[in-house]
């Protein structure tokens, strides 16, 4: 049985968000939640990531895969839930607010 650590992500904000660059590059701390197979591949269930406020759902996925490369294998089988609304991986522009909750949603199997 796998056990999951709880690791707070501490990537320096300066690497993604150049100083003095306001507007769409301003970074937000969002909570990322991992479930089912994505939690096994990432090795954890939740963490805080710093991402640009204006970002497409596909760009957000790519940011997350940079941190957890093993997630790449499930890219064609996941959707996001952003603030508990399903979002496909694609060109949809997200307007993330600080503290927003983003969940990786592998194919569901309730019932």
């Amino acid at each position: 049985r796998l056990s999951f650590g709880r690791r707070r992500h501490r990537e320096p904000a300066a690497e993604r968000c150049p100083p003095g660059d306001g507007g769409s590059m301003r970074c937000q701390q969002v909570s990322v939640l991992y479930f089912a197979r994505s939690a096994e591949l990432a090795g954890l269930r939740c963490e805080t990531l710093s991402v640009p406020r204006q970002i497409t759902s596909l760009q957000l996925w790519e940011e997350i895969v940079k941190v957890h490369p093993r997630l790449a294998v499930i890219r064609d089988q996941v959707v996001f839930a952003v603030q508990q609304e399903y979002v496909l991986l694609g060109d949809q522009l997200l307007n993330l607010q600080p503290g927003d909750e983003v969940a990786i949603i592998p194919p569901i199997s309730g019932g």
Partner: protein
Amino acid sequence: MDENEDTPKDFIKLKSEKLSVDEVSELVVSPYCGAVSVFIGTTRNNFEGKKVIHLEYEAYTSMAETEIKKICRDVRQKWPSVKHIAVYHRLGVVSITEASVIIAVSSPHRAESLEAVTYCINTLKASVPIWKKEIYEDEYSWKENKECFWANSEK
């Protein structure tokens, strides 16, 4: 009798304890209803020739409850005579033959509650963020509902 004392209610619960069909059915019973329809999803002992030891469920709990509430709202729009709805889903380990989900709906006449229960389980499988892991003797598998539009149908 005072009709106002029997306002339509939704009962939604995700829990790790064993589910009780009696408990869930009793939630939806109403003196104004002649029908209570119940669906029970139980754990099978085999999949594609492999022996299933047990199932394990996990959920994005807050969103799952929200999605089930949406299903209840849709049921009431489609079948306005439906009185009470109960959706109970088990989380964690579920042994063979035990219930993983119980859905109960009451209505004055049977057609509406029968149809509403079918709609509830079909829509739950398509939209509620709950995941099932099948544990076999030597391996395990994360299941994917065919109703889930972002699952690959061919591997």
